[in-house]
């Protein structure tokens, strides 16, 4: 469902849609942050199984509970406010379950799944919005008939069925987080053999392929405009062919396949050969047997022709990255590192096994006020120490000196699977909110007056309403989020009760004020920043234009602009 709506908006990548998406995500960030402050701890920890609630949040939760208990009379107005608030009564105290049942009052039953699934769908939409401007995969496939026919069919089918309806939200979430584990992913990076050959190989933009199913094959060959290889949606698995704009690459050069948990490469009768770690796989125009490949292997396509003076006569050297999915999802190590980053300078009583040392200078990275650099593999160094490797001739490619994982430093910021990050951020924000709320409620009233039975109500009156306002705001946000989404997916059909007020609420969400929240939110991404980041990404691809080594790539992951072929 979401793919369909996303694709319709793609061809005109112009502002209204994308800005709406952006506002969406802002909104989401807000609702996540704020609402979770009042959500029960359970909902947070159920979203993030590995996030054990810290003792700090524990105490604040009980604190809030206590403060409400001794003063029933002050709760009375609060309750009335609750019920008078438009959507529902249980929202303020809600967990996810409650929210879904509530929204089912106002919307058809299938929508209820969606509202609790919004964040999930959002992630999709956002990642999709990141590639705006490129033609959608679906369209590309229908227009180009000579695209590979075997595999994409089931793949496309599964994606176009509206999944929220038949899958319960929890399963869907788990399925998403497990995806990298089940699917076979391979990445191709350009490799420059700086030690042995003088001539640079063909530069290309790194490619990632995640097989939709194990029987799929990644075909590699010469790119040609005529074949018009469709651009796969990077958020979805794909086995789209990989094309290189070099004359030494045959149209059908080699294939990568995933058999029994192992990646293999096979020459499919190329004329100038496929080389695996310098070994030629087959005679010219002969099909080779399968050769197993592993992470870090170098696959070379063809041999430089005419000295490789011109770009289109250069061979292609690919560095393979596979079987690294374990590194790209939460694991012991990168969670540890995240911990480290979050607690920098807050006292050093936690043991960050394995990530306390900069492997370049062997000094500690734990001290605050140092410039640090963290790679995608969660290894951390001092910026000063690692900068040599960052600003190497290979830039934007960066190889981790600890684990040899390659990172494309110019890659667009991948926020597609930030589910747990967001949740975590929400959790930390909730800690902040509660901290703030507690200080609001307690410092003026509780601290000076030990016996808070009689004295509490006046104090409550000053602090409570704000909180309740907040709660109602949150309710509205919550519901509006669901409604907005439904409005979107149904292309503003009639069943959404208040699509017009949504903009109002959006505005409200931006100006919502949380007592004491602003000053104490170091870990919380302000709305401006998230939108800023997203706004930046298209710009970056233009800057790569200035770099002669990175040809502009408008039409495909491996399609280069016409300059090379023109000559």
């Amino acid at each position, binding site marked *: 469902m979401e793919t369909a709506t996303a694709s319709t908006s793609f061809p005109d990548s112009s502002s209204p849609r994308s800005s709406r998406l952006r506002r969406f995500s802002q909104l989401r960030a807000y609702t996540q942050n704020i609402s979770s402050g009042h959500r029960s701890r359970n909902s947070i920890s159920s979203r993030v199984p590995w996030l054990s609630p810290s003792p700090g949040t524990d105490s604040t939760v009980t604190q809030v509970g206590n403060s409400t208990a001794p003063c029933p009379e002050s709760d009375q107005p609060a309750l009335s406010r609750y019920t008078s608030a438009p959507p529902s009564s249980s929202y303020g105290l809600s967990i996810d379950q409650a929210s879904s049942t509530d929204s089912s009052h106002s919307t058809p039953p299938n929508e209820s799944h969606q509202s609790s699934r919004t964040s999930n769908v959002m992630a999709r939409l956002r990642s999709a919005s990141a590639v705006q401007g490129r033609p959608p995969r679906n369209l590309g496939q229908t227009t180009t008939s000579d695209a590979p026919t075997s595999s994409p069919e089931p793949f496309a089918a599964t994606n176009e069925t509206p999944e929220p309806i038949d899958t319960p939200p929890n399963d869907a979430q788990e399925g998403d987080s497990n995806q990298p584990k089940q699917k076979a992913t391979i990445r191709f990076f350009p490799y420059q053999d*700086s*030690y042995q050959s003088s001539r640079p190989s063909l530069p290309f933009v790194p490619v990632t392929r995640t097989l939709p199913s194990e029987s799929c094959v990644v075909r590699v060959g010469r790119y040609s405009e005529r074949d018009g290889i469709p651009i796969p949606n990077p958020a979805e698995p794909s086995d789209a062919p990989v094309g290189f704009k070099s004359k030494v690459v045959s149209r059908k050069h080699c294939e990568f396949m995933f058999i029994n948990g192992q990646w293999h490469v096979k020459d499919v009768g190329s004329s100038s050969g496929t080389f695996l770690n310098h070994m030629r796989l087959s005679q010219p125009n002969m099909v080779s047997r399968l050769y197993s490949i592993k992470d870090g292997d170098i696959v070379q396509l063809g041999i430089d022709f005419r000295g490789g003076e011109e770009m289109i006569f250069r061979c292609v050297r690919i560095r393979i990255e596979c079987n690294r999915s374990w590194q790209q999802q939460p694991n012991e190590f990168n969670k540890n590192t995240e911990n480290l980053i979050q607690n920098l300078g807050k006292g050093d009583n936690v043991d960050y096994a394995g990530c306390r040392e900069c*492997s*370049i*200078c062997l*000094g500690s990275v734990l001290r605050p006020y140092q410039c640090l650099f963290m790679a995608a593999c969660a290894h951390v160094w001092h910026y000063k*120490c690692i900068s040599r490797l960052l600003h190497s001739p290979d830039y934007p490619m960066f190889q981790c000196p600890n684990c040899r994982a390659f990172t494309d430093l110019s890659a667009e910021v991948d926020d597609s699977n930030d589910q747990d990050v967001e949740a975590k951020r929400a959790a930390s924000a909730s800690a902040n909110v509660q901290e703030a709320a507690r200080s609001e409620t307690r410092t003026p009233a509780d601290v000076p007056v030990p016996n808070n039975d009689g004295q509490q109500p006046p104090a409550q009156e000053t602090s409570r309403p704000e909180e309740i306002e907040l709660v109602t705001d949150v309710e509205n946000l919550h519901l509006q989020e669901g409604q907005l989404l439904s409005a979107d997916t149904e292309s503003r059909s009639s069943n959404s009760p208040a699509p017009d007020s949504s903009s109002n609420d959006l505005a409200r969400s931006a100006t919502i004020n949380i007592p004491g929240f602003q000053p104490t939110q170091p870990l919380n991404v302000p709305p401006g920043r998230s939108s800023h980041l997203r706004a930046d990404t298209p710009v970056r691809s233009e800057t790569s234009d200035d770099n002669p080594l990175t040809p502009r790539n408008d039409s495909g992951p491996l399609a280069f602009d016409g300059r090379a072929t023109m000559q």
Partner: protein
Amino acid sequence: MGSQKRIAKELTELVESPPAGITVKLADEANLYEWKVLMDGPEGSPYHKGKFQIKLVLPNEYPFKPPTVSFATKIYHPNVTNDDKGSMCLGMLRPDEWKPSSKIGAVLEFARQLLSEPMPDDAIEGRIAEQYKNDRKHFDEVARDWTRKHAS
């Protein structure tokens, strides 16, 4: 030359808790970049009871460039050149294999490991490697002989 701190750190570490059979010191107290390493021939190898002097030179770009390891003591080994240089071929020291996160301690331990288990497939002395593979008895004999002659 930002590497001095790291080198000094590694040196102290190695001097304070040296790996088995290895002692480390600076060849010249004034030069941090040249180390003198004394390595005992590992037990069970033909080099047992030999004491081998190794010169370890760190490039200015260390740790981004690998150190070079050479045997000052003559040794009969397929992975060590049989000349007055005595350069040693260690896989992890090849420029494309080297990782800045590798430490000198690891390099030395790897070198010692290579004494007990030569890698004839990765040899620089092809003749010795061939002998090691095909005529192990003879190889052991010569190696022991050289150890007695040069390294004791």
